[in-house]
């Protein structure tokens, strides 16, 4: 009995202590965090982004060394959710810079007036075809990534079947019941793949294409994690789950990731990319309207299109640099694939039609 009493007393004491601690902690945090509520002298610059944001410690330290600012990162959900949270907190943002709005959602951000225009230093070195807001500079392009169909090399070798290359191929009887894709309404690779088909077949033809894909046995799951880890036979997770779909909508950078995170690293990637099925995503960053540390935010934007950050990105976020002369690691060039002519759709057209496209896609394929 006496031990239980001790436990109870300790628990209550711990509870009270922890609450007190919580009290201190929060007030502590309020004064040191949120990028200096005390005006412009703050040495912290806050970057708000989605869950996929990554940068190596070294490169963030380098930024501090060059500019004197420390970066604090806030990640908030997937790309769509992160952007929507920014729109909700417009005018009273949680940070100074937002990174992670892509060309499929760009208009939503711009129409809501999220960003303060700023022409980052070094824009001249950035490829001009990704500068989608070149006149106003509300956003700065940071990286590109291609959404493409990946294939399980072993499956196609075993079956002595050539892997598909193009959108057309995917609808052929040889590839019946092999493809898994994501819900275009809830997943950004899913939406990218749908947009790729629209870019290829036009607004009049994409529905016919999806009818063909459906009768050819395409499977739709909700998110990338399920599609890639549970359904796709070429991924590490899929192998364990005895997945049976050798084709999946993923990224052109997925094969190098399979190599990097394998132990021991294989000589060739277990998966390949159907280069004729790619849709190009461009990701942007921008200075948030109402940012408390504008100067720091501007410095961060300059830094993000600088070589050091650009060369750090590929192995952290598995995207390609946009700055000319930024070196891409060998792992990327050796195991990844690049598409010569990735499909794109203009942001304005996407903004105008996205909902209607997704809705007719849903009623055609999901229901």
């Amino acid at each position, binding site marked *: 009995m006496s031990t*239980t009493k001790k*436990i*109870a007393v300790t*628990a*209550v004491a711990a*509870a*009270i*202590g922890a*609450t007190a601690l*919580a009290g201190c*902690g929060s007030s502590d*945090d*309020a004064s040191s*965090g*949120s990028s200096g509520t005390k005006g412009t002298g703050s040495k912290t610059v*806050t970057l708000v982004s989605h*869950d*996929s*944001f990554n940068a*190596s410690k070294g490169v963030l330290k380098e930024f501090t060394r060059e500019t004197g600012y420390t970066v*604090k*990162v*806030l*990640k*908030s*959900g*997937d790309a*769509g*959710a992160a952007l*929507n*949270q920014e*729109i*909700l907190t417009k005018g*009273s943002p949680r*940070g100074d810079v937002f990174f992670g709005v892509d060309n499929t959602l760009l208009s*939503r951000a711009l129409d809501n007036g999220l960003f303060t225009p700023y022409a980052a230093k070094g824009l001249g070195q950035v490829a001009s075809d990704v500068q989608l807001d070149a006149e106003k500079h509300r956003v700065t392009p940071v990286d590109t990534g291609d959404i493409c169909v990946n294939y399980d090399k072993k499956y196609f070798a075993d079956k002595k079947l050539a892997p598909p290359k193009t959108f057309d191929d995917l609808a052929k009887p040889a590839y019946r019941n092999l493809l898994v894709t994501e*819900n275009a*309404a*809830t997943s950004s690779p899913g939406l990218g793949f749908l947009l790729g088909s629209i870019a290829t077949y036009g607004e009049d033809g994409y529905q016919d294409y999806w009818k063909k894909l459906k009768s050819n046995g395409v499977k*739709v*799951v*909700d*998110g990338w994690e399920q599609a*890639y880890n*549970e359904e796709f036979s070429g*991924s*590490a*997770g899929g192998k*364990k*789950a*005895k997945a*049976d779909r050798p084709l999946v909508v993923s990224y052109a950078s*997925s094969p190098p*990731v*399979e190599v990097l*995170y*394998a132990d021991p690293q294989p000589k060739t990637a277990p998966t390949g990319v159907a280069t004729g099925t790619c849709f190009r995503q461009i990701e942007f960053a921008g200075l948030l309207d109402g940012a408390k540390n504008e100067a720091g935010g501007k410095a961060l934007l300059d830094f993000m299109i600088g070589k050091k950050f650009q060369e750090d990105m590929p*192995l*952290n976020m598995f995207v390609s640099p946009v700055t000319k002369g930024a070196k891409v690691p060998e792992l990327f060039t050796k195991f990844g694939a690049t598409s010569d002519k990735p499909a794109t759709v203009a942001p304005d057209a996407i903004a105008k039609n996205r909902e209607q496209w997704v809705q007719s896609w*849903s009623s055609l394929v999901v229901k």
Partner: protein
Amino acid sequence: MAVPVAFFAVFFAYPVAAIVGRGLKADGVWQFGRFAEVLSRPDIREVLWFTLWQALASTALTLLIALPGAYVFARFDFPGKQLLRAAVTVPFVLPTVVVGTAFLALLGRGGLLDDLWGVRLDTTVWAILLAHVFFNYAVVVRTVGGLWSQLDPRQEEAARVLGAGRFAAWRRVTLPALAPAVAAAALMVFLFTFTSFGVVQILGGPGFSTLEVEIYRQTAQLLALPTAAVLTLVQFAAVGAILAVHAWTVRRRETALKLVDPAQTARRPRGAGQWTLLGGVLLTVLVLILLPLAILVERSLDLPGGHGFGYYRALASADANSGTFLVAPLEAIGNSLRYALVATAIALVVGGLAAAALTRRAGRLVRGFDALLMLPLGVSAVTVGFGFLITLDKPPLDLRTSWILVPLAQALVGVPFVVRTMLPVLRAVDGRLREAAAVLGASPLRAWREVDLPLVRRALLVAAGFAFAVSLGEFGATVFIARPDNPTLPVAVARLLGRSGDLNYGQAMALSTILMLVCAVSLLLLERIRTDRSGEF
């Protein structure tokens, strides 16, 4: 009472009201026409209909499978009973991201059913229903079984001596005593399945959507706040109704039942029939609950070159993940424990004070407050999370980037468990004891320390344990606010699963296994602490 009311006003009611208001107001004018507009959409009606029938079906199936389990756990003694009772509760406090993956391994391709009979249930409604049984089995076993073990079996025996048949005796004596507990358990399961999010998203595929999933899609993906607001209010009304009925059944249950010590009612099974029943229940538990959990463990050990602890070792290094984490994934365990501890403290203070206030006073208003404390269980995390964003944005309450938000959100979910555990025990404390102490000259504090505390400390520990386990597994709200430099376990698992590559997948499984073990250990400790089973969980 002031503390819990203030807590709920600031961290629940105000944020939720603000985000709903944002959706329903245009230029300062309420747009109630949006109700008709949204509710007449065929896709929304489909969601409502699916939400309702899958919850009904899930509840029925859970009762069907778990009631024999409740009986076995209440009436039979068998080796490993405590361990097993803790094990069946693990799913209830695990995040769905983790369990969805494990469950797919049972029902999906290459799963056990597929191997044995070629049956695959992934992306069918059966997967959803069975997963709901998996998650809610413990609710029935704990709520119904807890009471069942305290019913005096001699009452039923007396009825049989007086000439009633076995079934008639059960129907006339045990069933009426048990009915309110069964109703309460059924309503809790209905509440949890009605607001199901992770299970439906992971196992159901894009063809199925519950209200909760739809609110998430409309808010986080489409930013269609008006639609989300209407759906939130519809869910609110439904959850309010469920809770009102629940509160009513709970009150009925509290009416005079002659309860006995559970230790006296359980005995070793006798006869073929009872052994078969025990075997059947154990088999069900094995296949439906232990197997998915075991698959998780198996995958965490399944290295490319055979089985081993390689993924666990990799968790300790930040380098292996380059930038996925700024710290080693192993540190997520420390973060989770710290957050959960603070959340538990908050939940204990708020829930304990609320329970105390509810015991001292009676009346309609207080009863309403009782139900109000349960509401966070039925309101979507995304609504609360987005509400935090637009309300807690001004000093002194600009907490949007503060770490305290995580334990605050977790405490919201923990408080109902504290209240439900503490309330019956507190109500059982005889007020005259306290008065006697006062008469003898004890100060109120002393009276509380000498009279109340010894009587409730076990309940307090059980409540703390539950709040702790629930906080550990909380994912929905945490994912919105967890900071990258200190992710919690479930958030770390989700991040690892969000990347391709063998090492990431393996580490996700290893972390899930650790989370599962931490939950199981804290629940097992609870089993040892608690002796009375009058609480509801």
